[in-house]
Protein backbone atom coordinates (compact mmCIF):
# COMPACT_ATOMS: atom_id res chain seq x y z
CA UNK A 1 0.00 0.00 0.00
CA UNK A 2 1.32 3.43 -0.84
CA UNK A 3 2.23 5.88 1.89
CA UNK A 4 -0.59 8.26 1.06
CA UNK A 5 -3.13 5.45 1.29
CA UNK A 6 -1.89 4.46 4.74
CA UNK A 7 -2.18 8.07 5.81
CA UNK A 8 -5.70 8.25 4.35
CA UNK A 9 -6.70 5.08 6.17
CA UNK A 10 -5.56 6.64 9.45
CA UNK A 11 -7.52 9.78 8.67
CA UNK A 12 -10.61 7.65 8.00
CA UNK A 13 -10.19 5.94 11.36
CA UNK A 14 -10.00 9.37 12.94
CA UNK A 15 -13.12 10.49 11.10
CA UNK A 16 -15.00 7.40 12.20
CA UNK A 17 -14.00 8.08 15.79
CA UNK A 18 -15.01 11.72 15.41
CA UNK A 19 -18.35 10.69 13.95
CA UNK A 20 -19.03 8.23 16.75
CA UNK A 21 -18.19 10.86 19.33
CA UNK A 22 -20.31 13.52 17.63
CA UNK A 23 -23.25 11.16 17.26
CA UNK A 24 -23.05 10.15 20.88
CA UNK A 25 -23.15 13.80 21.85
CA UNK A 26 -26.11 14.50 19.68
CA UNK A 27 -24.19 16.87 17.46
CA UNK A 28 -25.82 17.86 14.21
CA UNK A 29 -24.11 20.04 11.62
CA UNK A 30 -27.41 21.30 10.29
CA UNK A 31 -28.83 22.20 13.66
CA UNK A 32 -30.20 25.60 14.16
CA UNK A 33 -29.76 25.94 17.82
CA UNK A 34 -28.05 24.19 20.63
CA UNK A 35 -24.74 23.97 22.33
CA UNK A 36 -21.46 25.15 20.88
CA UNK A 37 -19.10 22.33 19.82
CA UNK A 38 -19.03 20.04 22.76
CA UNK A 39 -15.34 20.42 23.38
CA UNK A 40 -15.81 24.07 24.26
CA UNK A 41 -16.50 24.19 27.93
CA UNK A 42 -19.23 26.46 29.12
CA UNK A 43 -21.81 27.86 26.78
CA UNK A 44 -21.99 31.53 26.33
CA UNK A 45 -25.31 33.03 25.42
CA UNK A 46 -28.44 34.44 26.88
CA UNK A 47 -29.61 32.62 29.94
CA UNK A 48 -33.05 34.12 29.87
CA UNK A 49 -35.19 35.93 27.46
Amino acid sequence: MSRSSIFYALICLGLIALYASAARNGYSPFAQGGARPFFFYGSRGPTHK
Partner: protein
Amino acid sequence: MSTVPRTRTRPPGGASTVKALNCPNCGGTIALRAAGRTVSLLCEHCGSTLDATQPDLRVIVEANQALHRPLIPLGSRGELDGVTWEVTGYLERTDGEEPWSEYLLFNPYEGYAFLVDDGDRFSLGRLLDRVPGWDNNALSVDGRAFEPTWPTYEARVTFVVGEFYWRVKVGERVQVTDYAAPNLMLSAEENGAERSWTQSKLLDRGIAEAAFGIPARQASWGSTPRADEPSPYRRRLREALVIAALAAAVLLFLGITAPSNQLVLTRQVDVPFDEKSHNVVIGPVDLPSTRQSVHVRARAVTLNNSWLDLDYSLVERRTQQSYAGYATAERYSGRDSDGSWSEGDNDPGVRFSSIPRGTYDLVIDGAAHRWVDPKAAPASFTPIFGSASLPAQDTVPVTLEVRRGGGTGGLLFLFLMLIAAWPAVLWLKHAHHEARRRGWAQSDDEDDDE
Protein backbone atom coordinates in the same frame (compact mmCIF):
# COMPACT_ATOMS: atom_id res chain seq x y z
CA MET B 1 24.27 -37.35 -27.91
CA SER B 2 25.31 -37.12 -31.52
CA THR B 3 27.51 -39.63 -33.25
CA VAL B 4 28.75 -37.00 -35.68
CA PRO B 5 32.25 -35.67 -35.04
CA ARG B 6 32.66 -31.95 -35.38
CA THR B 7 34.26 -30.90 -38.61
CA ARG B 8 35.38 -27.58 -37.26
CA THR B 9 37.25 -27.14 -34.06
CA ARG B 10 35.48 -25.18 -31.42
CA PRO B 11 37.09 -23.93 -28.24
CA PRO B 12 35.78 -25.67 -25.11
CA GLY B 13 34.54 -22.43 -23.57
CA GLY B 14 32.61 -21.66 -26.70
CA ALA B 15 33.47 -19.59 -29.72
CA SER B 16 33.17 -15.83 -29.57
CA THR B 17 30.22 -14.39 -31.45
CA VAL B 18 32.24 -11.34 -32.47
CA LYS B 19 34.45 -11.54 -35.56
CA ALA B 20 37.00 -8.80 -36.10
CA LEU B 21 37.25 -7.81 -39.76
CA ASN B 22 38.64 -5.07 -41.92
CA CYS B 23 36.43 -2.84 -43.98
CA PRO B 24 37.24 -3.48 -47.67
CA ASN B 25 36.78 0.21 -48.40
CA CYS B 26 38.73 2.04 -45.70
CA GLY B 27 40.59 -0.79 -44.01
CA GLY B 28 39.30 0.18 -40.60
CA THR B 29 38.64 -2.52 -37.99
CA ILE B 30 35.03 -3.45 -37.73
CA ALA B 31 33.21 -6.21 -35.94
CA LEU B 32 30.72 -8.70 -37.34
CA ARG B 33 28.58 -9.69 -34.35
CA ALA B 34 25.81 -11.80 -35.89
CA ALA B 35 27.45 -13.78 -38.67
CA GLY B 36 24.93 -15.71 -40.73
CA ARG B 37 22.13 -13.32 -39.80
CA THR B 38 23.56 -9.94 -40.65
CA VAL B 39 22.77 -8.89 -44.20
CA SER B 40 24.12 -5.33 -44.38
CA LEU B 41 26.84 -3.72 -42.31
CA LEU B 42 27.60 0.00 -42.27
CA CYS B 43 31.23 0.72 -41.48
CA GLU B 44 31.44 3.29 -38.69
CA HIS B 45 34.75 4.62 -39.98
CA CYS B 46 33.83 5.41 -43.56
CA GLY B 47 30.07 4.93 -43.75
CA SER B 48 30.22 2.41 -46.59
CA THR B 49 27.52 -0.21 -46.79
CA LEU B 50 28.98 -3.71 -46.92
CA ASP B 51 27.25 -6.90 -48.01
CA ALA B 52 27.49 -9.57 -45.32
CA THR B 53 25.64 -12.32 -47.18
CA GLN B 54 28.80 -13.47 -48.97
CA PRO B 55 31.76 -14.99 -47.20
CA ASP B 56 33.86 -11.91 -48.09
CA LEU B 57 32.51 -8.47 -47.28
CA ARG B 58 31.80 -6.56 -50.44
CA VAL B 59 31.19 -2.85 -50.74
CA ILE B 60 27.64 -2.13 -51.88
CA VAL B 61 27.67 1.62 -51.30
CA GLU B 62 30.94 3.46 -50.99
CA ALA B 63 31.24 6.36 -48.57
CA ASN B 64 34.03 8.40 -47.12
CA GLN B 65 32.82 9.99 -43.92
CA ALA B 66 33.06 8.58 -40.42
CA LEU B 67 29.67 8.08 -38.84
CA HIS B 68 28.89 9.67 -35.48
CA ARG B 69 28.86 7.39 -32.49
CA PRO B 70 25.56 6.51 -30.89
CA LEU B 71 24.97 7.30 -27.22
CA ILE B 72 25.29 3.59 -26.45
CA PRO B 73 28.34 2.43 -28.46
CA LEU B 74 28.12 -0.53 -30.83
CA GLY B 75 29.20 -3.68 -29.06
CA SER B 76 27.93 -2.57 -25.64
CA ARG B 77 26.30 -5.31 -23.64
CA GLY B 78 23.62 -4.91 -21.02
CA GLU B 79 21.10 -7.03 -19.17
CA LEU B 80 17.39 -6.28 -19.37
CA ASP B 81 14.75 -8.53 -17.77
CA GLY B 82 17.35 -11.21 -17.14
CA VAL B 83 18.56 -11.38 -20.76
CA THR B 84 21.95 -10.11 -21.91
CA TRP B 85 21.84 -8.08 -25.13
CA GLU B 86 24.60 -6.74 -27.37
CA VAL B 87 24.19 -3.58 -29.44
CA THR B 88 24.88 -4.54 -33.06
CA GLY B 89 23.20 -1.73 -34.97
CA TYR B 90 21.89 1.78 -34.48
CA LEU B 91 19.53 3.88 -36.50
CA GLU B 92 17.71 7.17 -36.20
CA ARG B 93 14.21 7.71 -37.52
CA THR B 94 11.78 10.58 -37.68
CA ASP B 95 8.07 11.01 -38.28
CA GLY B 96 8.70 14.36 -39.88
CA GLU B 97 8.40 16.24 -36.60
CA GLU B 98 10.07 14.31 -33.83
CA PRO B 99 13.19 12.13 -34.12
CA TRP B 100 13.97 9.02 -32.13
CA SER B 101 16.72 6.38 -32.01
CA GLU B 102 16.62 2.61 -32.16
CA TYR B 103 19.34 0.17 -31.13
CA LEU B 104 19.31 -3.29 -32.70
CA LEU B 105 20.04 -5.67 -29.84
CA PHE B 106 21.23 -9.22 -30.37
CA ASN B 107 21.45 -12.38 -28.28
CA PRO B 108 22.40 -15.66 -30.01
CA TYR B 109 19.70 -17.61 -28.15
CA GLU B 110 16.97 -14.95 -28.01
CA GLY B 111 17.38 -13.41 -31.43
CA TYR B 112 16.83 -9.68 -31.86
CA ALA B 113 15.23 -6.88 -29.89
CA PHE B 114 14.90 -3.13 -30.39
CA LEU B 115 15.85 -0.60 -27.73
CA VAL B 116 13.93 2.55 -28.60
CA ASP B 117 15.06 5.90 -27.21
CA ASP B 118 12.66 8.83 -27.59
CA GLY B 119 15.07 11.19 -25.88
CA ASP B 120 13.42 10.72 -22.50
CA ARG B 121 12.28 7.13 -22.00
CA PHE B 122 13.54 3.77 -23.24
CA SER B 123 11.34 0.94 -24.53
CA LEU B 124 12.30 -2.63 -25.36
CA GLY B 125 10.55 -4.04 -28.42
CA ARG B 126 10.30 -7.59 -29.80
CA LEU B 127 8.76 -8.74 -33.03
CA LEU B 128 5.45 -10.56 -32.58
CA ASP B 129 5.03 -14.00 -34.08
CA ARG B 130 1.38 -13.62 -34.80
CA VAL B 131 -1.16 -11.09 -35.95
CA PRO B 132 -3.15 -9.46 -33.13
CA GLY B 133 -6.90 -9.91 -33.09
CA TRP B 134 -9.60 -7.25 -32.81
CA ASP B 135 -11.69 -7.18 -29.66
CA ASN B 136 -14.43 -4.50 -29.54
CA ASN B 137 -12.56 -1.40 -30.58
CA ALA B 138 -9.12 -2.48 -29.45
CA LEU B 139 -6.37 -4.80 -30.59
CA SER B 140 -5.80 -7.83 -28.43
CA VAL B 141 -2.62 -9.84 -27.82
CA ASP B 142 -2.60 -12.56 -25.18
CA GLY B 143 -5.78 -11.19 -23.72
CA ARG B 144 -4.35 -7.71 -23.31
CA ALA B 145 -6.19 -4.84 -25.01
CA PHE B 146 -4.37 -2.08 -26.90
CA GLU B 147 -6.31 1.07 -27.73
CA PRO B 148 -5.86 2.93 -31.03
CA THR B 149 -3.90 6.16 -30.81
CA TRP B 150 -2.94 8.76 -33.40
CA PRO B 151 -3.42 8.23 -37.14
CA THR B 152 -0.93 6.20 -39.17
CA TYR B 153 2.29 8.10 -39.84
CA GLU B 154 5.39 7.61 -41.95
CA ALA B 155 8.69 6.78 -40.25
CA ARG B 156 11.83 7.52 -42.24
CA VAL B 157 15.38 6.38 -41.49
CA THR B 158 17.77 9.32 -41.25
CA PHE B 159 20.94 7.66 -39.98
CA VAL B 160 22.36 4.11 -39.85
CA VAL B 161 25.50 2.53 -38.46
CA GLY B 162 26.39 -1.07 -37.60
CA GLU B 163 24.87 -4.32 -38.81
CA PHE B 164 21.30 -5.31 -39.56
CA TYR B 165 19.40 -8.36 -40.68
CA TRP B 166 17.67 -6.49 -43.48
CA ARG B 167 18.97 -4.24 -46.27
CA VAL B 168 18.65 -1.06 -44.25
CA LYS B 169 19.38 2.30 -45.84
CA VAL B 170 18.95 5.97 -45.08
CA GLY B 171 15.65 7.19 -46.49
CA GLU B 172 13.86 3.86 -45.98
CA ARG B 173 10.18 4.54 -45.21
CA VAL B 174 7.46 2.57 -43.48
CA GLN B 175 3.87 3.32 -42.47
CA VAL B 176 3.50 2.99 -38.71
CA THR B 177 0.33 2.63 -36.65
CA ASP B 178 0.60 2.59 -32.87
CA TYR B 179 -1.68 1.08 -30.24
CA ALA B 180 -1.25 1.64 -26.51
CA ALA B 181 -1.75 -0.29 -23.28
CA PRO B 182 -0.36 0.53 -19.81
CA ASN B 183 3.46 0.39 -20.20
CA LEU B 184 3.10 -1.40 -23.54
CA MET B 185 2.93 -0.30 -27.12
CA LEU B 186 1.98 -2.29 -30.21
CA SER B 187 3.27 -0.99 -33.51
CA ALA B 188 2.39 -2.15 -36.99
CA GLU B 189 5.03 -1.28 -39.61
CA GLU B 190 4.13 -1.66 -43.24
CA ASN B 191 6.04 -0.88 -46.39
CA GLY B 192 3.59 -2.07 -48.99
CA ALA B 193 4.94 -5.57 -49.38
CA GLU B 194 4.84 -6.78 -45.82
CA ARG B 195 3.65 -5.79 -42.39
CA SER B 196 5.35 -6.62 -39.13
CA TRP B 197 4.10 -6.21 -35.58
CA THR B 198 6.33 -5.15 -32.70
CA GLN B 199 5.36 -5.13 -29.04
CA SER B 200 7.39 -2.73 -26.90
CA LYS B 201 7.61 -2.53 -23.15
CA LEU B 202 8.16 0.87 -21.58
CA LEU B 203 11.16 0.53 -19.29
CA ASP B 204 11.15 2.26 -15.91
CA ARG B 205 13.35 5.31 -15.71
CA GLY B 206 17.00 4.45 -15.18
CA ILE B 207 16.76 0.77 -16.10
CA ALA B 208 18.21 0.96 -19.61
CA GLU B 209 20.70 3.64 -18.58
CA ALA B 210 22.02 1.46 -15.77
CA ALA B 211 22.12 -1.64 -17.99
CA PHE B 212 24.17 0.01 -20.72
CA GLY B 213 26.21 2.41 -18.64
CA ILE B 214 24.89 5.79 -19.73
CA PRO B 215 23.88 8.65 -17.44
CA ALA B 216 20.41 8.46 -15.96
CA ARG B 217 17.88 11.00 -17.13
CA GLN B 218 15.75 13.30 -15.03
CA ALA B 219 12.01 13.42 -15.41
CA SER B 220 10.68 16.79 -16.48
CA TRP B 221 7.62 18.16 -14.73
CA GLY B 222 4.40 18.79 -16.58
CA SER B 223 5.32 16.99 -19.79
CA THR B 224 2.49 15.35 -21.67
CA PRO B 225 2.17 11.71 -20.66
CA ARG B 226 3.15 9.13 -23.30
CA ALA B 227 0.37 7.05 -24.81
CA ASP B 228 1.61 4.00 -22.91
CA GLU B 229 2.35 5.82 -19.68
CA PRO B 230 -0.14 4.67 -17.06
CA SER B 231 -1.60 7.16 -14.62
CA PRO B 232 0.45 7.27 -11.41
CA TYR B 233 -2.83 7.89 -9.59
CA ARG B 234 -4.59 4.71 -10.69
CA ARG B 235 -3.17 2.51 -7.96
CA ARG B 236 -3.64 5.06 -5.21
CA LEU B 237 -7.18 5.75 -6.39
CA ARG B 238 -8.03 2.07 -6.21
CA GLU B 239 -6.58 1.81 -2.71
CA ALA B 240 -8.37 4.98 -1.60
CA LEU B 241 -11.69 3.70 -2.96
CA VAL B 242 -11.29 0.44 -1.04
CA ILE B 243 -10.48 2.32 2.16
CA ALA B 244 -13.34 4.77 1.55
CA ALA B 245 -15.77 1.92 0.94
CA LEU B 246 -14.75 0.24 4.19
CA ALA B 247 -14.97 3.50 6.14
CA ALA B 248 -18.35 4.31 4.59
CA ALA B 249 -19.62 0.86 5.46
CA VAL B 250 -18.57 1.35 9.08
CA LEU B 251 -20.19 4.77 9.20
CA LEU B 252 -23.39 3.48 7.64
CA PHE B 253 -23.44 0.63 10.12
CA LEU B 254 -23.04 3.08 12.99
CA GLY B 255 -25.69 5.31 11.50
CA ILE B 256 -28.21 2.54 10.97
CA THR B 257 -27.69 0.97 14.36
CA ALA B 258 -27.80 4.29 16.16
CA PRO B 259 -30.67 4.54 18.60
CA SER B 260 -33.57 6.35 17.05
CA ASN B 261 -35.17 9.35 18.55
CA GLN B 262 -37.62 9.19 21.44
CA LEU B 263 -40.68 11.28 21.88
CA VAL B 264 -40.33 13.18 25.14
CA LEU B 265 -43.35 15.43 25.11
CA THR B 266 -46.29 16.39 22.95
CA ARG B 267 -48.64 19.27 23.69
CA GLN B 268 -51.17 21.32 21.85
CA VAL B 269 -50.81 25.04 22.14
CA ASP B 270 -53.07 27.74 20.80
CA VAL B 271 -51.31 30.70 19.28
CA PRO B 272 -53.33 33.87 18.92
CA PHE B 273 -53.33 36.14 15.92
CA ASP B 274 -51.54 39.42 15.89
CA GLU B 275 -50.58 39.72 19.47
CA LYS B 276 -47.17 41.13 20.12
CA SER B 277 -46.00 38.11 22.01
CA HIS B 278 -47.60 35.22 23.70
CA ASN B 279 -45.50 32.95 25.87
CA VAL B 280 -46.37 29.39 26.56
CA VAL B 281 -44.17 27.12 28.61
CA ILE B 282 -44.33 23.41 28.16
CA GLY B 283 -42.37 20.84 30.06
CA PRO B 284 -40.77 18.93 31.57
CA VAL B 285 -38.35 17.93 28.87
CA ASP B 286 -36.13 15.31 30.47
CA LEU B 287 -32.78 14.90 28.79
CA PRO B 288 -30.97 12.05 30.57
CA SER B 289 -27.86 11.55 28.38
CA THR B 290 -24.68 13.48 28.92
CA ARG B 291 -25.48 15.25 25.68
CA GLN B 292 -28.16 14.72 23.08
CA SER B 293 -29.84 16.40 20.18
CA VAL B 294 -33.34 17.71 20.63
CA HIS B 295 -35.87 18.07 17.84
CA VAL B 296 -38.96 20.32 18.18
CA ARG B 297 -41.72 19.79 15.65
CA ALA B 298 -44.61 22.23 15.27
CA ARG B 299 -47.62 21.03 13.33
CA ALA B 300 -50.13 23.72 12.38
CA VAL B 301 -52.30 22.02 9.82
CA THR B 302 -55.15 24.47 10.04
CA LEU B 303 -53.10 27.34 8.74
CA ASN B 304 -54.55 28.92 5.67
CA ASN B 305 -53.02 31.98 4.12
CA SER B 306 -51.34 32.77 7.35
CA TRP B 307 -48.07 32.15 9.08
CA LEU B 308 -46.83 31.52 12.52
CA ASP B 309 -43.68 32.94 14.13
CA LEU B 310 -42.34 30.64 16.79
CA ASP B 311 -39.45 31.58 19.05
CA TYR B 312 -38.19 28.70 21.13
CA SER B 313 -36.08 28.76 24.25
CA LEU B 314 -35.02 25.52 25.78
CA VAL B 315 -34.26 26.43 29.38
CA GLU B 316 -32.72 24.17 31.95
CA ARG B 317 -34.67 24.38 35.17
CA ARG B 318 -31.78 24.34 37.58
CA THR B 319 -29.08 26.28 35.78
CA GLN B 320 -31.37 28.44 33.69
CA GLN B 321 -29.07 27.69 30.77
CA SER B 322 -31.03 28.53 27.64
CA TYR B 323 -30.78 27.53 23.99
CA ALA B 324 -32.65 29.43 21.32
CA GLY B 325 -34.35 28.37 18.14
CA TYR B 326 -36.80 29.80 15.67
CA ALA B 327 -39.32 28.36 13.23
CA THR B 328 -41.96 29.60 10.85
CA ALA B 329 -45.04 27.56 10.06
CA GLU B 330 -46.88 28.83 6.99
CA ARG B 331 -49.44 27.90 4.41
CA TYR B 332 -50.70 29.96 1.46
CA SER B 333 -53.11 29.06 -1.30
CA GLY B 334 -55.15 30.71 -3.99
CA ARG B 335 -56.11 30.73 -7.65
CA ASP B 336 -54.57 32.55 -10.54
CA SER B 337 -54.39 32.26 -14.32
CA ASP B 338 -52.49 28.93 -14.06
CA GLY B 339 -55.01 27.36 -11.72
CA SER B 340 -54.98 26.81 -8.00
CA TRP B 341 -51.75 26.81 -6.05
CA SER B 342 -50.54 26.25 -2.55
CA GLU B 343 -47.20 26.57 -0.84
CA GLY B 344 -45.53 26.79 2.54
CA ASP B 345 -44.34 24.41 5.17
CA ASN B 346 -46.92 24.09 7.93
CA ASP B 347 -44.93 21.43 9.79
CA PRO B 348 -41.49 22.88 10.50
CA GLY B 349 -38.87 21.24 12.67
CA VAL B 350 -35.98 22.72 14.59
CA ARG B 351 -32.97 20.78 15.83
CA PHE B 352 -30.87 21.63 18.83
CA SER B 353 -27.55 19.90 18.97
CA SER B 354 -25.50 18.67 21.93
CA ILE B 355 -27.87 19.76 24.68
CA PRO B 356 -26.42 18.79 28.08
CA ARG B 357 -28.18 16.59 30.57
CA GLY B 358 -30.96 18.16 32.62
CA THR B 359 -34.63 18.86 32.95
CA TYR B 360 -35.76 21.59 30.62
CA ASP B 361 -38.76 23.70 29.85
CA LEU B 362 -39.58 24.72 26.32
CA VAL B 363 -40.67 28.36 26.23
CA ILE B 364 -42.61 29.13 23.09
CA ASP B 365 -43.21 32.70 22.08
CA GLY B 366 -45.65 32.51 19.18
CA ALA B 367 -47.58 34.96 17.03
CA ALA B 368 -49.88 34.22 14.12
CA HIS B 369 -50.38 36.59 11.19
CA ARG B 370 -52.70 36.58 8.21
CA TRP B 371 -51.71 37.08 4.63
CA VAL B 372 -53.75 38.40 1.75
CA ASP B 373 -53.13 37.37 -1.85
CA PRO B 374 -52.53 40.62 -3.78
CA LYS B 375 -53.90 38.92 -6.91
CA ALA B 376 -57.14 37.88 -5.33
CA ALA B 377 -60.33 39.88 -5.89
CA PRO B 378 -60.05 43.08 -3.93
CA ALA B 379 -61.92 43.05 -0.65
CA SER B 380 -64.31 45.74 0.21
CA PHE B 381 -62.36 46.68 3.27
CA THR B 382 -58.67 47.09 4.08
CA PRO B 383 -56.96 43.78 3.41
CA ILE B 384 -54.56 43.78 6.33
CA PHE B 385 -56.84 42.20 8.81
CA GLY B 386 -58.51 39.14 7.44
CA SER B 387 -60.35 38.53 4.18
CA ALA B 388 -64.09 38.40 3.67
CA SER B 389 -64.08 34.95 2.15
CA LEU B 390 -62.29 33.28 5.05
CA PRO B 391 -63.72 32.36 8.37
CA ALA B 392 -62.20 34.39 11.15
CA GLN B 393 -59.85 32.52 13.47
CA ASP B 394 -58.80 33.77 16.80
CA THR B 395 -56.00 31.30 17.42
CA VAL B 396 -54.04 28.70 15.56
CA PRO B 397 -53.80 25.33 17.23
CA VAL B 398 -50.24 24.00 17.09
CA THR B 399 -49.21 20.51 18.10
CA LEU B 400 -45.68 20.49 19.45
CA GLU B 401 -43.61 17.32 19.59
CA VAL B 402 -40.33 17.32 21.43
CA ARG B 403 -37.97 14.44 20.69
CA ARG B 404 -34.50 13.61 21.95
CA GLY B 405 -31.75 11.58 20.27
CA GLY B 406 -31.64 10.30 16.72
CA GLY B 407 -31.29 12.68 13.85
CA THR B 408 -27.78 11.61 12.88
CA GLY B 409 -28.59 11.74 9.17
CA GLY B 410 -27.01 15.11 8.66
CA LEU B 411 -23.92 14.16 10.58
CA LEU B 412 -23.62 10.95 8.59
CA PHE B 413 -23.91 12.86 5.33
CA LEU B 414 -21.24 15.34 6.44
CA PHE B 415 -18.77 12.63 7.37
CA LEU B 416 -19.42 10.60 4.23
CA MET B 417 -18.54 13.74 2.26
CA LEU B 418 -15.36 14.16 4.28
CA ILE B 419 -14.37 10.56 3.59
CA ALA B 420 -15.07 10.99 -0.10
CA ALA B 421 -12.84 14.05 -0.35
CA TRP B 422 -9.50 12.28 -0.88
CA PRO B 423 -10.74 9.74 -3.46
CA ALA B 424 -12.41 12.65 -5.27
CA VAL B 425 -9.09 14.53 -5.43
CA LEU B 426 -7.29 11.42 -6.72
CA TRP B 427 -10.00 10.78 -9.27
CA LEU B 428 -9.69 14.31 -10.62
CA LYS B 429 -5.90 14.01 -10.89
CA HIS B 430 -6.26 10.63 -12.61
CA ALA B 431 -8.87 11.94 -15.04
CA HIS B 432 -6.66 14.93 -15.84
CA HIS B 433 -3.67 12.68 -16.56
CA GLU B 434 -5.73 10.41 -18.80
CA ALA B 435 -7.19 13.36 -20.67
CA ARG B 436 -3.69 14.64 -21.41
CA ARG B 437 -2.40 11.19 -22.27
CA ARG B 438 -5.20 10.72 -24.77
CA GLY B 439 -4.61 14.06 -26.41
CA TRP B 440 -4.68 12.36 -29.78
CA ALA B 441 -8.47 11.92 -29.56
CA GLN B 442 -9.01 15.53 -30.57
CA SER B 443 -7.61 14.92 -34.00
CA ASP B 444 -9.94 11.99 -34.52
CA ASP B 445 -13.12 14.00 -34.82
CA GLU B 446 -13.38 13.71 -38.58
CA ASP B 447 -11.79 10.31 -38.77
CA ASP B 448 -14.47 7.72 -38.19
CA ASP B 449 -13.32 4.57 -39.89
CA GLU B 450 -12.78 2.75 -36.62
